[in-house]
């Protein structure tokens, strides 16, 4: 890519094209949708954390007036084998089908057991109470350590640990053991003058999107079934429903509603297959909306984790060895983000000797789902806390220690490739020079710093730019817009076409309009879909040039396109894009450009955060008094929304570090399944979140873009955790630093 390029639209703080609808309440989210003749579906959930389902008698519910259909796992013949790629990872269809509606066992309190569709939500709820389920309650296991014990209650009799040297002969709750290493870890620690080793615990945290899961569906036996829903990836919703219900892809259309937050949590399905089944059985459109407690109890949070980190360094600050061990809570079915946890743990460091071991553990909690940089915050928290302690023991500034060992272009990663050009050093320099870092702390305050790394992904993006006879254009894309991405898409196409933003209307299209488009996740949308749109818009330009060249009887090389106008280099003529579009039918047909790409070369984004806190010595309550988020965007297409990603990620991380956790009672039921008790940060909890947008271009994107959505949630755990320890002169080993936990640390002396 060309650097120091002058952009007309890229880098501006434009008004998002979907903005007016969203500030006036006109934008349609999934729960806002209704169809004539529609009925309502509700779900019966298990009160038990672990039990055999002996029988389900739905006859009384079915007989209740106003009830149109009842569904259980027995209705789902599909989904009994194999896995498909969806969201950011492979989905095991058998597990998915048994998570949506329990089969022979319930595996967590809140596990769906049966569903009813009735004339109203109230009638459906009343009918649920008429369903008789006979359970044989089994011992449950809630904690990672307990679940890994040889005598623990086993969730899945057919689960044998993968990745062990010896084939196990009995089932276990450990789904997988994995290990990545490079260099000689023993030799590395032998070289070290200082070695710090600690074990940490991180609670599970929910994505906490404000919009509960919702969908409206209409099953059509002969034609095409329709799903309107809130999802980060409607093509994957189509794929999963197709598999679970045995419907061909072309006979299922998914129409994405506006989405009210997801953060990874809306990359799978919960309601849609059930709603389709209820619609199939009742012959009516079905609407389903989760209650907030259902969202907490039965949709994926991210994993709790136990993580050990050990780091050795020489007196001069050279890090010689880094070792990690982690066990991640997958919930009731295998598949925690342990693997990315292993891969990312020490990636911010250029260290030759690294060994990381990981365990994916099932227990009687809801199945986890992706959450912003899945798996990275937990393991990198442990690594960053220990690196800070190494700096402390060496008497070095923690930023200097990181600068001395920072990953950079050519650094070997533990997971395979060497890093291309990355911006960690630039982020660390920005942190060092920031007004925040230069400012002195007040008495009783503490400060923490931490770095974070996330890969980012590319993948399939399919787009079309359709030009119209009045010179305006439609940007047809397939990436659900979760944080303002339509603004970036509009800006990138406007940049290529050289026409004003308001001449271009971005639309997130349904699954019939475009070929497959990957889910909005992995910080891929502005990078990959943007890359596809740049290519599609360039095709429009080429076509417009060809039409003008034909008009003037010159070659395409003899014309030039700039700012929406084609000029004849061999003469005086010029013609606008709008004029070419107006006469397109007469010069060879309407004009559009399409690009279906599998984007390669996603650039990693490093982040560095600074946090100051104040701790109330009497209550243990922590106040964040100052916070700065610094991150590499490659190139910020819309700086406002880039900053917004930094701020939003930082605050989700602050919430996780300070208050958010799942609290279970002795029966294994979640005790805080609501926003009053699962306490996400409020406006009154926070200061302004200062941001620094570092731009080290990604050579693989035409404008240099790196995804920015995820890295920002990684550093807060250690930045806050270290700051709290710094303020109370203790070593934090467990998150969240909620008031009772901090108070007990203060009192422990």
């Amino acid at each position, binding site marked *: 890519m060309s650097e120091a390029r002058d952009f007309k639209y890229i880098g501006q*703080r434009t*008004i*998002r094209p*979907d*903005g*007016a*609808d*969203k*500030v*006036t*309440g*006109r*934008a*349609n*989210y999934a*729960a*806002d949708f*209704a169809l004539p003749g529609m009925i309502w579906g509700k779900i019966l959930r298990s009160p038990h954390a672990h039990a055999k389902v002996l029988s389900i008698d739905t006859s009384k519910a079915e007989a209740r007036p106003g009830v149109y259909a009842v569904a259980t796992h027995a209705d789902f013949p599909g989904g009994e084998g194999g896995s498909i790629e969806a969201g950011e990872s492979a989905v095991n269809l058998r597990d998915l089908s048994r998570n949506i509606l329990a089969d022979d066992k319930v595996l967590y309190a809140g596990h769906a057991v049966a569903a009813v569709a009735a004339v109203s939500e*109230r009638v459906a709820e009343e009918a649920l109470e008429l369903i008789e389920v006979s359970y044989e309650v089994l011992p449950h296991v809630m904690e990672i350590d307990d679940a890994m014990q040889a005598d623990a209650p086993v969730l899945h009799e057919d689960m044998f640990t993968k990745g062990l040297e010896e084939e196990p002969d009995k089932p276990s709750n450990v789904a997988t053991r994995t290990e990545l290493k490079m260099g000689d870890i023993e030799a590395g620690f032998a070289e070290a003058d200082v070695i710090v080793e600690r074990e940490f615990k991180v609670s599970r945290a929910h*994505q*906490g*999107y*404000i*919009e*509960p899961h919702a969908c409206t569906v209409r099953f059509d036996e002969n034609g095409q079934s329709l799903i309107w829903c809130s999802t980060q990836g409607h093509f994957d919703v189509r794929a999963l429903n197709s598999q679970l219900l045995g419907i061909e892809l072309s006979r299922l259309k998914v129409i994405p509603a*506006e*989405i*009210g*937050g*997801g*953060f990874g949590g809306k990359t799978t399905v919960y309601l849609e297959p059930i709603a389709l089944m209820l619609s199939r059985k009742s012959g009516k459109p079905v609407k389903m*909306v989760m*209650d*907030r407690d259902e969202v907490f109890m039965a949709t994926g949070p991210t994993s709790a984790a136990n993580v050990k980190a050990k780091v050795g360094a020489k007196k001069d600050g050279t890090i010689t060895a880094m070792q990690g061990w982690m066990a991640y809570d997958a919930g009731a079915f295998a598949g925690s983000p342990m693997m990315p946890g292993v891969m990312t743990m020490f990636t911010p460091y250029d260290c030759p000797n690294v060994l990381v071991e990981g365990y994916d553990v099932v227990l009687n909690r809801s199945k986890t789902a992706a959450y912003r940089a899945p798996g990275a915050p937990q393991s990198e928290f442990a690594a960053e806390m220990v690196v800070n302690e190494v700096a402390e023991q060496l008497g070095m500034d923690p930023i200097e220690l990181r600068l001395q060992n920072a990953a950079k272009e050519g650094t070997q990663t533990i997971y395979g490739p060497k890093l291309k050009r990355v911006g960690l050093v630039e982020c660390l320099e920005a942190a060092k020079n920031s007004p925040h870092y230069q400012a002195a702390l007040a008495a009783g305050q503490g400060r923490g710093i931490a770095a974070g790394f996330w890969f980012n992904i590319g993948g399939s993006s399919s787009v079309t730019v359709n030009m119209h006879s009045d010179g305006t254009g439609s940007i047809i894309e397939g990436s659900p817009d*979760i*944080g*303002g991405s339509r603004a970036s898409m509009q800006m990138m196409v406007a940049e290529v076409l050289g026409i004003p933003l308001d001449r271009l209307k971005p639309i997130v299209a349904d699954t019939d309009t475009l070929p497959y488009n990957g889910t909005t996740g992995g910080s891929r949308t502005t990078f990959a879909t943007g890359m596809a749109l740049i290519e599609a818009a360039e095709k429009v330009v080429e076509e417009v040039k060809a039409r003008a060249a034909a008009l003037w009887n010159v070659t395409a090389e003899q014309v030039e396109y700039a700012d929406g106008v084609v000029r004849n280099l061999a003469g005086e003529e010029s013609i606008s894009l709008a004029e070419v579009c107006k006469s397109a039918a007469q010069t060879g047909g309407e004009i559009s450009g399409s690009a279906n790409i599998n984007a390669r070369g996603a650039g990693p984004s490093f982040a560095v955060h600074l946090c100051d806190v104040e701790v109330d010595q009497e209550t243990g309550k922590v106040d964040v008094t100052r916070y700065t988020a610094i991150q590499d965007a490659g190139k910020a297409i*819309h700086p*406002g*929304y880039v*900053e*917004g990603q930094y*701020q*939003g990620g*930082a*605050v*989700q991380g602050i919430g996780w570090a300070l208050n958010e956790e799942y609290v279970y009672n002795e029966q294994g039921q979640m005790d805080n399944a*609501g*926003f*009053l008790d699962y306490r*996400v*940060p*409020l*406006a*009154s*909890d*926070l200061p*302004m*979140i200062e941001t620094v947008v570092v731009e080290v271009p990604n050579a693989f994107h035409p404008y240099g873009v790196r995804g920015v959505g995820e890295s920002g949630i990684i550093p807060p755990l250690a930045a806050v955790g270290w700051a709290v320890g710094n303020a109370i002169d203790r070593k934090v080993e467990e998150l969240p630093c909620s008031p009772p936990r901090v108070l007990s640390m203060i009192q422990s002396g």
Partner: protein
Amino acid sequence: MTKTHVTSTVNGDAVEFLCEPGDTLLDVLRNDLQMTGTKEGCGSGDCGACSVMLNDRLVCACLVLGVEAEGADIGTIEGIGSNDRLHVLQEKFLEHAALQCGICTPGLIVAAKALLDENPDPTEEETRYWLAGNLCRCTGYDKIIRAVMDAAETMRESA
């Protein structure tokens, strides 16, 4: 179940509806009056996505029964600005990129307008505490607070 006939005013328009005793004002607005700008995030008064004005008081519509709307004057997001004539708060939310997914935005704008109607010159702390009942999970609140304070300044200047 017998439904109750309720007469009230929504955004200045006289409305009538039938509701069951257990229906909330939020159910009535969204399902009976088809005014879906008011959002449901929790149904328990914790998130503020359903913020509306009830006789000039800021309330969560999920905590008010439909029958309580009898004779009441209700104000919702649909009564604040329109796509071609936005309220200053709405303009400032867009200028400051103070929304990402946008699901909390209608409630925040209703709540912020209630703040500025009562206190045209709020401090940052006053703004943060007034909006503490409105959860936003996307933005970290920074740009929301800036948008509200900027709107307050603009409104004071034009007052």
